[in-house]
């Protein structure tokens, strides 16, 4: 489960107007004729080194530059969640005990620099990713035999990985069966890099990989280019497109400017992680017909409720806010690009419950009775006037979500204030347990199409002193035992355990461990130069740049 990270600048009317004028400006043009497409990103990728990047922005670039043994089909909707062989000849052979995965590497593969790919590069890639401290490295260290010992410096290799360069055979032994391990192997972080690639951040000069593109011309926090890989053809990996045009990526932190550039056709692709400003939305809808659509995503938004800190260590306090929230208000703050919901597993994720929300329907107005009940619960818990600090980040509409939520907390009886942190530092700040964050906004989106990905945020093992991935600090024995029981089931057999995931998610909603308020819809918004219909909106990685082509 990765969390989306979105990346301001005396003051007088003159400055205010200047800001507006700046927002109306445009950057370099890409209109007319052939040539690269210009993709705008609201937030710079955390890193362009595949061994480090763990945000949606990083993955958007690295999944088409660093292919792993497995990858996802380049398709829209549910079809895009299907795993296909990447650098491996086929899907893995899994031992009966579910602990050993065997692959054979495709023959004749070369990196973007022309160097042949070897089976041993896989072992090196895993070691490099662990040593670099990739954000999800626990998926490797906790699952692959010898991964933890290597991470702690007790071993020089990951003992669970055996490779044979002559035959291309790769064997991976797990500590215990882990059903979604095939999805782990499809992470761009496990996209192979050559043995000997320096074990240091190469974000400004990303290493060679195997994929339709290579990353070049990186200007940190400003721009980078995805250039077509001359060593990659349509026969290299069936199902992975070769790409049509080079992709110039520019970081534009102002949503307004971003939307205006795409609307005015001076840039080609709007960042699907961003929100089109409400004042421009109607214009976009009317002027950009045929090149704008709302795409459902398997992601959502919630306010975490820290169960280890007052007042939300009291179940009554958690229930009270859940009763009082008006999700329709938050939907409006998101320019309508939010589907109100109460369950942790979003619509589109296997296991999303079909039952009713336990504390009121998310799509209807908060009833006076529910609001009164919320106040009564606060009173009953003796929490009237209890101080609450709400954490949030500056980016719109996330700050507006927090403004609404703070106002709500004050209305039901708390004494709430806000702490707004710069986007780049937000997750690190709330993820530091010494800050004792009581409650705040979190966005969540899928890393892979398996509910266990989301439940990492509720797994007691994810509670860490820094980089804590479980901001509500949930440590519930029922959830833990269910996770242990459900984890070994393969992603391909999810259908057999859907009812158990649904029951678990209903239990979580009932416990009000977090205040889920909706599931995101994303804008697929292009210039009129780009073939809108041909471009894939991928359920895991968003806009698939390898399918972008000019009309």
């Amino acid at each position: 489960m990765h969390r989306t990270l979105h990346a301001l600048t005396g003051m007088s009317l003159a400055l205010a107007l200047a800001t507006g004028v700046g927002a109306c400006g445009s950057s370099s043009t890409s209109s007319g004729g052939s040539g690269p497409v210009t993709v705008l990103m609201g937030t710079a990728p955390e890193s362009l080194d595949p061994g480090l990047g763990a945000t949606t922005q990083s993955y958007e670039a690295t999944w088409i530059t660093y292919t792993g043994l497995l990858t996802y089909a380049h398709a829209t909707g549910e079809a895009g969640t299907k795993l296909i062989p990447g650098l491996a000849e086929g899907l893995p052979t899994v031992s009966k005990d579910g602990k050993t995965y065997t692959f054979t590497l495709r023959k004749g593969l070369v990196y973007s620099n022309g160097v042949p790919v070897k089976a041993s590069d896989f072992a090196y890639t895993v070691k490099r990713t662990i040593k670099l401290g990739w954000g999800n490295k626990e998926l490797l260290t906790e699952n692959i035999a010898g991964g933890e010992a290597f991470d702690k410096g007790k071993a020089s290799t990951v003992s669970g990985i055996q490779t044979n360069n002559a035959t291309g055979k790769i064997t991976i032994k797990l500590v215990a069966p882990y059903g979604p391990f095939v999805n782990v192997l499809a992470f761009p972080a496990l996209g192979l890099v050559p043995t000997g690639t320096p074990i240091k951040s190469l974000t400004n000069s990303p290493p060679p990989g195997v994929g339709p593109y290579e990353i070049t011309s990186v200007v940190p926090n400003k721009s980078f280019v995805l250039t077509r890989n001359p060593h990659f053809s349509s026969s290299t990996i069936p199902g992975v497109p070769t790409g049509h045009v080079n992709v110039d990526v520019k970081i534009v932190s102002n949503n307004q400017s971003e939307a205006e550039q795409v609307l005015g056709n001076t840039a080609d692709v709007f960042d699907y992680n961003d929100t089109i400003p409400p004042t421009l939305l109607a214009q976009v809808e009317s002027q950009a017909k045929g090149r704008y659509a709302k795409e459902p995503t398997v992601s959502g938004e919630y306010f975490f409720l820290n169960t280890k800190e007052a007042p939300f260590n009291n179940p009554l306090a958690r229930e009270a806010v859940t009763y009082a929230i008006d999700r329709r208000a938050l939907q409006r703050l998101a320019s309508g690009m939010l589907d109100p919901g109460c369950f942790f597993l979003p619509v589109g994720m296997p296991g999303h419950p079909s039952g009713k929300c336990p504390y009121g329907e998310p799509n209807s107005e908060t009833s006076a009775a529910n609001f009164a009940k919320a106040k009564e619960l606060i009173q009953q818990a003796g929490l009237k006037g209890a101080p609450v600090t709400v954490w949030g980040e500056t980016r719109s509409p996330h700050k507006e979500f927090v403004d609404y939520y703070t106002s709500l907390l004050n209305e039901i009886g708390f004494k709430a204030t806000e702490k707004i942190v710069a986007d780049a530092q937000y997750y690190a700040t709330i993820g530091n347990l010494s800050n004792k964050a009581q409650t705040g906004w979190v966005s969540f989106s899928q890393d892979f199409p398996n509910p266990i990905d989301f439940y990492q945020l509720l797994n007691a093992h994810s509670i860490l002193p820094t980089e804590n991935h479980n901001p509500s600090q949930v440590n519930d024995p029922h959830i833990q035992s269910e996770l242990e029981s459900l984890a070994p089931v393969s992603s391909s057999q999810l259908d057999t355990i859907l009812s158990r995931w649904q029951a678990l998610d209903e239990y979580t909603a009932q416990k009000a461990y977090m205040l889920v308020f909706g599931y995101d819809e994303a804008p697929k918004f292009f210039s009129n130069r780009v073939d809108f219909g041909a471009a894939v909106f991928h359920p895991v990685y968003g806009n698939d740049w390898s399918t972008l082509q000019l009309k």
Partner: protein
Amino acid sequence: MKVVLRNRVALAFGVLLAAIVALCLLAPVYAKDIAHTGPNQNHITDTVSVGGKQVDVVSPTGVPIGPTWKGRFLLGADSNGRDVAVRLLYGGRNSLEIGAIATAITLLLAIVLGTLAGYARGVTDGVLSRLFDLVWAYPAVLLGVALGVALAVGGINLGIFTLHSGSLLLPAFVIGVVVFPYVAKPLRAHTLSLREREFVDAARMMGYPPPFAGVRIMVSEILPNLSSTIVVFAPLIIANAILLEAALSYLGAGVQAPNPSWGTMIADGTRLMPGAIHLVVVPGLMLVLTVLSVNVLADTLRDALDPKASLRGRL
């Protein structure tokens, strides 16, 4: 006062400033009896009657209502469905309050340290002057942002001196620390000159009892002679403090949300430019008018106290 009354421009701006201050002070009355809402109260899913029709305060796609020119939502709503007029007045209170407190902190620090440096000379002067230089060396906004952001998370906790991160005193403190060298340095220079004057020598010869002889000379002899300088500087500092507060708040390092200030209102409004331009123009205009009024009054005061214009305060 007579000078102000004789100068029609100064008089006009004086009246304007008084009106702004009065309106801001009356914010709670306006909120309670006219707008019927608080500054941080959301009305996102509410409707309001405009021209006999019920209109969404915030549309389903997030566009807030513009000015209704009525008691409720007189100047429209912001993206959170909050009444802009109410926030404007409360924001003005906050901005003016911070400006006044920051000025007090600036003057306190500048008078104490500037006078001490100028009067004591030697090592004391050396250390304090380097301190002034150190703070002066950083651009005010940059240093303010750095301090504001650093303190926004944890506030200040020095045992007996504690400031909560959401406190309005925090931006005032930051501004005071950032601005004081701009006043302390001229005061030090003026003190250096004053301490050589005959009346100070006379005071020394009268023999104030130790150990506080120096302090008593500074308070009873030097300080009164610095008063005109201080009086001229004070309004200039207020104007700059209001401006700096707005800048810091715009950048997220000043007044913390959801509390309004003109700077935070401008920052919030930029998201909805140009469709809801009033969200930026209205607080921006209030800011310009307030700072302009204070500056015109400061100039008039300076001309009255220093007709030869030997002192030109520049911050």
